[in-house]
Structures are given as structure tokens and as C-alpha cells.
């Protein structure tokens, strides 16, 4: 490809706070450049999973190639790269940004800059992107574009005086946005003849072609038949197809420096195309990979069990299939006395966990029982050996433990100043260590805390939202391990430990948590034929106790006129209800109980 053509390429992404209109703007741009006819346009094309659409978030990055002719009649190729927008996926976002030269920053004209806006701007600046600010929703009554412009200039330090004022929803000002992209975002650089270096920024599994890797060619040229190597995993493949997204997969003869497209190479496993990895040629390889690759590891673990034990192998198949498209999901078999055979699954974060569970239930029609999420604790036993424990049941005896360490994160919370007190109280309550507070402007602060991960995987997000009336936003990054006084909290039903309910928790919190779990279980477990004591215990010490009173009455007064079928139907229904329960010793425990012990406050 000639430099003249490369001059006409613009690789960009759109960044925004949730709900500020990123997906809608993307749709409009696709529409105006003719990538979509209105007929086959479903709302928000870039978010193609149902789940994303429902949650209004983008989970997987995606790319589309657009053509655009400016007023002087010059043709441009625009590659729009979509990015995920949640803390669980920060790394993926950063790799998508690394594939671009510019970013359109969408700011809601009534909301102004929010925490995510800023977090994304920083990521974009880290990747040396040119930023094109755009002010959206200007047709809403609460719009205050001048104030928002000033915010952009004061907080981010970006010139925003001539930022396009648009309404993505109503198609106002879209053309202007595209003109700005062409003007401001620089054309990519790169030497077509240098050894190949292509950045993988996403991938998905296609039933016919195998893994489709999304790449940005930084240097060199890639074509069908080339032998390629992934520099981090050192896996080698032969390229079967290269192409671009129109937005459907469209093969091309080659991809050169500066271009965005895809590679298929009969790759069976998305784990072989890690986001951030560099693709090079087997012959004439690049000396150094592109910077920024990070192996991403699960942070949160939870046991997932089929509600119906007979569907264990279906669950395994479903996890296998999800894994094909989700390299960050890990799972291995585990057994629980209470729940039978299942899997210990690792997730990037809570949202990721929710998404996987929902997909299993929705796409694979599985009924699941999930256990409380846990993190990986480092347990050092008296013999000096370190154990990584993600399932509380596997914790060694308290007597054998020298000390324990838990993962901690640096959390950044942005909120209006009036909620600072409430938020700091919350962080303090979650064993947070205050690190920093920075005024972003008069009415907004960025608070930084060091928090134990296990304090935020339960309900931190919800608690934060409720204490800030939804205004606070939250981002976190793991920063290592630190020693802590942790204990295993057991729950006993009818005198027996229910392994699936055990938790590892800080000593200071065990008492309150034990009591609230006992109370919660009392609500959730239906009364049965006998009295059921619920106890919370640390070792052999009982720290809380509740009692589910025995059922007093469950009998039909009358069987009228020989109508046996009616009574039988009633009993069958009752029996069916029991089937959905887990038998723990003599006690029948509803499946929700295993998960809802997490919801407090």
C-alpha cells in the first residue's frame, strides 16, 4: 500500500461515560457513511450481544471499516474501533485504544464529565491519541454546552471551543464529527517493509473459520498463506484469510501498516490470540513485540453448580463453549458436599461473573446455583509452604496457618463533593486505607483508597451507588497482596457445616457477617417439619444463631367427593418445589440461599 493511501486512513475509537451516547453516535456514523442501510440497521449495531444491549454496556470490542468522501471529493478510510466500558475490562479498552490514532470523546451536555469519561481520557492520552471532543444531547432541556466546554478545558485541558454540538439520537451534527475526525486524527505511520508487528485487540470464535483475531498492523504487511507467530504465547499458525469489516467479514489480499482488519488462521482457541499480543512472521520476525501486553488473570472466583445435578456435563460443555470466546474465563471441576459436582470459575471481576452466569442461564438454558464469590488468598502454613486458596473449603486448619495474605486494589472513586463523607465512611468500613483526594474542580473529587479486594466483590458497587445517589463512579486496579487477620466463617444448618456457604473474611467482620447471614438464611429457608438451628461459627466457636421454627400445618382438611387427582396435583407441585431445593443433611435449602447470602445493607 502506498503512503498516499495510508495518508487517507483514520483509525479512531469513541470514548464516553456510560449512557453519554457512545453507541448511538457509532450507529449514526455508520449510517451516514453508508456502512449500513437503515433497513438492516438494528439499533446499536456495535453491541451485538443481547446482554450488552440490555445492560447498555459494550462487552467486546469491535471494529468497522467505513468509507467517507469529504467536501473536496477526497476519499478516506475510517476504522471505527469500539471499546468496552467497564472497570472489569480496562485492559481490553487500553488495547483497543492502542490500535487507534485518535479518540472521539463524547460528553453529555447536561451531565458533563464523569469518572469514566476521565478514566478513558487518561487511557487515551497514555496511548498518545488525539482527542476529538464532542458534546452530545444538546437538544435535551438540561443541556448546558458552554459549561461542559469549560469543564473539558479546565479538567482535561483540551481545547473545546469548536467542539461539535450534536444530538446522536436525532442525527444532528454527525457530519461535523466526521470532518473533525478527518482533520484532527493523524493518519497512521508505519513501514510496509519492516518485519511484521500486528497488535491483537480482540478476537471471537467463528464456527467455520476458527478464531477471528482483530488486528491493527503497526509495521509490515500480512497476507494469506503467511506463517505467523504470536509473540507472547509463541503459538504459530498459517494464515487462511485476511480481511476487513464492512461491517461483515470481507476478505482482502493483504493488510499493510496502518490498517485495521482481521486474521483467520484455523486457530481453535481464543486463548491463543491474547488481547495485546503481537503477531509477527515466523520467517523474518520482529525483534521486539509491541509494548503493553499483560497476561490478565482472574480476580474473582465462584463455584458454579447445575441446579439439576444430572446436567453437570451440559454445564461443562457450556463453559467450554463460552471459553472459546472468552479467554479470561477459567474453570476447573470442584465438588461440594452441599451442591455436588460443579466448577470453580475465575472471572475478571463481578460484572464479568454476572455476564458469564447470565449467558450460561440464557444461552444454554441452565439453572445454576452459585456460591459466594471469593478471591485468591495466599496462605502460608507453619511448614513454610504457600497455598493459593480460592475456595474457603480448602483452607488449611487454623492451627496450621502461620499467616494469610489477601489481594488489595487501588480504587479510584469520583463523586460530587457532597458525598465525600459518606463515601469515605464506606471505604473505611470496608477496611480501606485512605491514600489521596484530589479536587478535579470545585464540585468534584477523585478519592483514592487502598481496599482489600474481598471487600469490594460483595456489594461495594451497590453500596457506593446508594450512598452517592448514583453519582459516584468507581474504578480499581490490583496492586498486590498484604497480610491480614482472616478467618474462615462456617455456616451450620441443623448442626452440620454447609461447605458451599463458608467464607473467608476479616476477623473484625466475622461477627456481623455471621449474624446477617444467619438472619438472611432464616428468611430464605422455608419452614420444615422440624426446627432448624442456623449457626455461624469460626472454628468451634459459635458466633451467631437463629432458629427456623418447625412448620405447624400443611394438611388438606378435606378430600371432596373422591377427587384424589386434585390433592395429588398439589402434592406433585410440592414435590417439584422440593426438587429445586438442595438437600443439606435433612434440611432442604433453596438455591437462591447460596448466592443471596452476599446481599447485605
Amino acid at each position, binding site marked *: 500500500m502506498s503512503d498516499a493511501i495510508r495518508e487517507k486512513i483514520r483509525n479512531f475509537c469513541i470514548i464516553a461515560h456510560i449512557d453519554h451516547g457512545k453507541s448511538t453516535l457509532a450507529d449514526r456514523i455508520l449510517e451516514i457513511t453508508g456502512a449500513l442501510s437503515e433497513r438492516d440497521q438494528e439499533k446499536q449495531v456495535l453491541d451485538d450481544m443481547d446482554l450488552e444491549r440490555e445492560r447498555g454496556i459494550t462487552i467486546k470490542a469491535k471494529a468497522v471499516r467505513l468509507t467517507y468522501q469529504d467536501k473536496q471529493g477526497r476519499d478516506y478510510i475510517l476504522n471505527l474501533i469500539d471499546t468496552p466500558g467497564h472497570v472489569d475490562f480496562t485492559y481490553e479498552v487500553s488495547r483497543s485504544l492502542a490500535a487507534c490514532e485518535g479518540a472521539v470523546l463524547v460528553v453529555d451536555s447536561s451531565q458533563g464529565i464523569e469518572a469514566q469519561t476521565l478514566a478513558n481520557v487518561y487511557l487515551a492520552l497514555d496511548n498518545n491519541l488525539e482527542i476529538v471532543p464532542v458534546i452530545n444531547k444538546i437538544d435535551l432541556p438540561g443541556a448546558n454546552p458552554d459549561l461542559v466546554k469549560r469543564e473539558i478545558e479546565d479538567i482535561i485541558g483540551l481545547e473545546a471551543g469548536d467542539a461539535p454540538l450534536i444530538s446522536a439520537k436525532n442525527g444532528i451534527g454527525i457530519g461535523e464529527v466526521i470532518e473533525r475526525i478527518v482533520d484532527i486524527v493523524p493518519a497512521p505511520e508505519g513501514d510496509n517493509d519492516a518485519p511484521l508487528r500486528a497488535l491483537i485487540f480482540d478476537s471471537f470464535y467463528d464456527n467455520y473459520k476458527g478464531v477471528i483475531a482483530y488486528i491493527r498492523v503497526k509495521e509490515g504487511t500480512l497476507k494469506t498463506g503467511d506463517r505467523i507467530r504470536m509473540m507472547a504465547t509463541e503459538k504459530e499458525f498459517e494464515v487462511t484469510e485476511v480481511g476487513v469489516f464492512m461491517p461483515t467479514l470481507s476478505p482482502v489480499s493483504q493488510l499493510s501498516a496502518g490498517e485495521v482488519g482481521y486474521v483467520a488462521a484455523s486457530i481453535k482457541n481464543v486463548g491463543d490470540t491474547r488481547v495485546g499480543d503481537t503477531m509477527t512472521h515466523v520467517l523474518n520476525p520482529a525483534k521486539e513485540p509491541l509494548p503493553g501486553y499483560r497476561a490478565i488473570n482472574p480476580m474473582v472466583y465462584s463455584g458454579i453448580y447445575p441446579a439439576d445435578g444430572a446436567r453437570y456435563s451440559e454445564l461443562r460443555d457450556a463453559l467450554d463453549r463460552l471459553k472459546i470466546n472468552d479467554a479470561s474465563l477459567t474453570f476447573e471441576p470442584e465438588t461440594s458436599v452441599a451442591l455436588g459436582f460443579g466448577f470453580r470459575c475465575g472471572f475478571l471481576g463481578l460484572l464479568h461473573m454476572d455476564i458469564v452466569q447470565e449467558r450460561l442461564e440464557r444461552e444454554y438454558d441452565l439453572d445454576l446455583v452459585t456460591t459466594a464469590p471469593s478471591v485468591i488468598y495466599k496462605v502460608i502454613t507453619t511448614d513454610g509452604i504457600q497455598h493459593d486458596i480460592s475456595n474457603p473449603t480448602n483452607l488449611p486448619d487454623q492451627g496450621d496457618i502461620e499467616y494469610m495474605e489477601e489481594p488489595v486494589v487501588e480504587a479510584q472513586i469520583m463523586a460530587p463533593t457532597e458525598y465525600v463523607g459518606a463515601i469515605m465512611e464506606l471505604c473505611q468500613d470496608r477496611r480501606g486505607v485512605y491514600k489521596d483526594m484530589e479536587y478535579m474542580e470545585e464540585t468534584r473529587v477523585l478519592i483514592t483508597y487502598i481496599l482489600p479486594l474481598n471487600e469490594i466483590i460483595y456489594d461495594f458497587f451497590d453500596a457506593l451507588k446508594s450512598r452517592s445517589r448514583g453519582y459516584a463512579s468507581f474504578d480499581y486496579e490490583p496492586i498486590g497482596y498484604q497480610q491480614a487477620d482472616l478467618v474462615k466463617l462456617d455456616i451450620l444448618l441443623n448442626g452440620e457445616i454447609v461447605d458451599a456457604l463458608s467464607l473467608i473474611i476479616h476477623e473484625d467482620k466475622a461477627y456481623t457477617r455471621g449474624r446477617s447471614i444467619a438472619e438472611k438464611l432464616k428468611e430464605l429457608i422455608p419452614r420444615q417439619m422440624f426446627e432448624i438451628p442456623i449457626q455461624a461459627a469460626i472454628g468451634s466457636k459459635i458466633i451467631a444463631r437463629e432458629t427456623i421454627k418447625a412448620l405447624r*400445618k400443611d394438611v*388438606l382438611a378435606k378430600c371432596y367427593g*373422591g377427587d384424589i387427582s386434585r390433592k395429588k396435583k398439589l*402434592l406433585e407441585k410440592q414435590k417439584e418445589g422440593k426438587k429445586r431445593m438442595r438437600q443439606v443433611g435433612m434440611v432442604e435449602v433453596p438455591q437462591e440461599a447460596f448466592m443471596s447470602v452476599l446481599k447485605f445493607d
Partner: protein
Amino acid sequence: MGYNSLGLYVHIPFCLRKCFYCDFPSYSGMGHLMDPYLHALKIELKNSSTRIGDRKVNTIFFGGGTPTLYSSERLIDLLKYIKDTLCISQDAEITIEANPETLNGYKLEALKDEGINRLSLGMQAGQEKHLRKLGRGHTLKDVRVNMDLARSLGFDNINLDLIFGLPHQTLEEWVESLAIACKFGAEHISAYSLIIEEGTPFFEMLNGGSLNALDEDAEREMYHTGAELLKNQGYYHYEISNFAKPGKECAHNLIYWHNGEYIGIGSGAHSSLGGVRWSNHNGISTYIESISQKGCAIESKQKISPAEQRFETIMMGLRLVKGVSKAKFYNRFGQGIRVYYGKAIDQLKGLGMLEETTEYIRHTEKGFDLQNQVLTYFMDEL
């Protein structure tokens, strides 16, 4: 009554008014269908006789609805027709249900003369306010007057139906109701716990908040106190909700509880014969039409597998205080009850819900309160 008895149930779906708690297939304001219905009953009876052949019918039960809404002439006409069509045992128990406001001396006498030997009166409560709240159409006095009349005419087997666990009912009121029923001299008392069923006015009131259901503990206290009171009054507690003076157990209902055989005639009636169960259409017009067109009005019919028969035998048998007879079970199914249900029985014994003698498996007092829970243990085979 033996285990091989055959019962005949005749359903009369008409009522003067629908009580607020009632979810039986009965209707008010359908008086114009009473004659066509009677006609249809006869056709169904005639056709049923071929199923039964010359097998003796041991019990007849006219239930409703309000059978005594029919005039004595119509009732006698029907009874005569039954006797002409089927082979009725000499000593058959023949019961008719009645609401006190539909009775009078003339009707009672006619019924007695035609061989009806058991009367079941809906008394329900011993307080006028509760009768009104239940939507009953009679007073306490109506009950007493008709009891006395029936006595003087020679009825010596009278049941009074009572309900407890009514909204705002006190234990004292319930005890009083029972005491009144005893004083009236009933040979048999059915004491039913109120169940608020969907589709009844009570259910709507409960949902709308204008009715408060009685709490379980209070309800159970009424049950156990009531059972104790009746025992002291010489009544034998023989089924969850039924109490009788010695020898006055309801033979017809015992057929149900022994999971025996019966033919049900009329709308919504259920039958069980030769391992097959069937039931008729509930709606009166549907029933009449169906009979006139096809000679039968069966809505659903199913063959009962041996496993289901075993479960049903347990389900019904455990309603009896005596319990399920091991010998009868063995005779019927060719294997002992423990062969099928040993594990469930042991678990339930361990929980204090069942007890076992050499002859019977039966509920403990606690097990009676939780019968549905107990029965689910017997359902693994299904």
C-alpha cells in the same frame, strides 16, 4: 365397611347462594336447569349400570351443592330410579347433605321413608356473626329445629359440618361451636380447617386486605383442642377432620380413604373403578348437553398405574387415624408396604411423623399437622 365396598356418589350442583369460602363445583341461580339435570342424572345412571353389572352398591351419598334444594318429590323420584337401576345393598348407608334452610318436616319425613338413613347438615359455626361472615343462609336456630325434627322422625345418624380457623374466630368460639354441636346430639362431626382457595370471595377479600387469615399456631390450637374436646364427649377421632360416635363412621367416605371403588354421577363427579379414574365436566350445561349427546360427560380419564395406586392408598389411608393396614396393603399389592416405602417410613419415623405397629403405619399427632410434607416422602416412586 369392608375394603371391597362400592360407593355411589350423586352430585347436585345447585345452591341457593354460594358461600364465601366455597370452591366446590356448585352454582346459584341455575334453578331452571334443575329438571333437565335430573333427567341427565338418570341417563348417566342407566349407562353406568352397565359398568357395575349386578355388583352391590354399599353406600350412596348425595352431595353438593345442596341436594335438598330439590323438592322431596324429585329427590324421591331420583332415589327410586337409583334403586330400580342399580343393585343396592340391603344395609346400604344412604347419606344426603342438606343446608338447614332447605329442610322442613315434610321433606325430612319423605326422605326417611324412602330409605335415607344418614343426614349431613351444614352447621359450620355456633355464632350467628360467623354464619353471616361465611355467607351462610341459615341461623343457628335453623340447625337446632331441623336436628330436632330429624330426631323425632327417627334419624339416628346425623352429621354436622363445622369449620374452624375462620378469620377473627377465637378459640373460645370454636370450643363453643363444638359444644353446641355435641349438645344437638350429632352422631358424627366433621371439623374442617378453613382453606381459602383461589377463586372464592374469601380469596379476593384476603388479597384485597379486607380479610385477615388466622395464624397457623392459633389454627392448630383449635384443631387439637377441638379433637380433645370431642374425644371427651365420646367421639372417636377416625380421620383428619372427622369424629364419630362408635359405629357411626361414614361408610361412604371410608371407601375414599381406603382408596376403594366408587362411581360418581353428575357434573364434576369423580369415579374410580377397576384401576381407572375419571371425572365429569364441571359445568352444569356442559354436563347436561354432553349426557344428552353422548350418554356420558367424562372430561378426563386415566388408568392408574400400580405405583400410583400404591401411593394413593398411602395418601388416602394416612388420613385415617388408624393408618394404613399393612395386611390390606399386602393383599392388594402382593408385597409388603416396606418393600416399597421402607426408606420413607424409617426417615419419617426418625422425624417423629409416623409410627408403626405390627398392623398399621400411621401418623403421629405431629404428622397429622404436616401430612402433605409427609406424603412427599412417598412420591419417589412416581
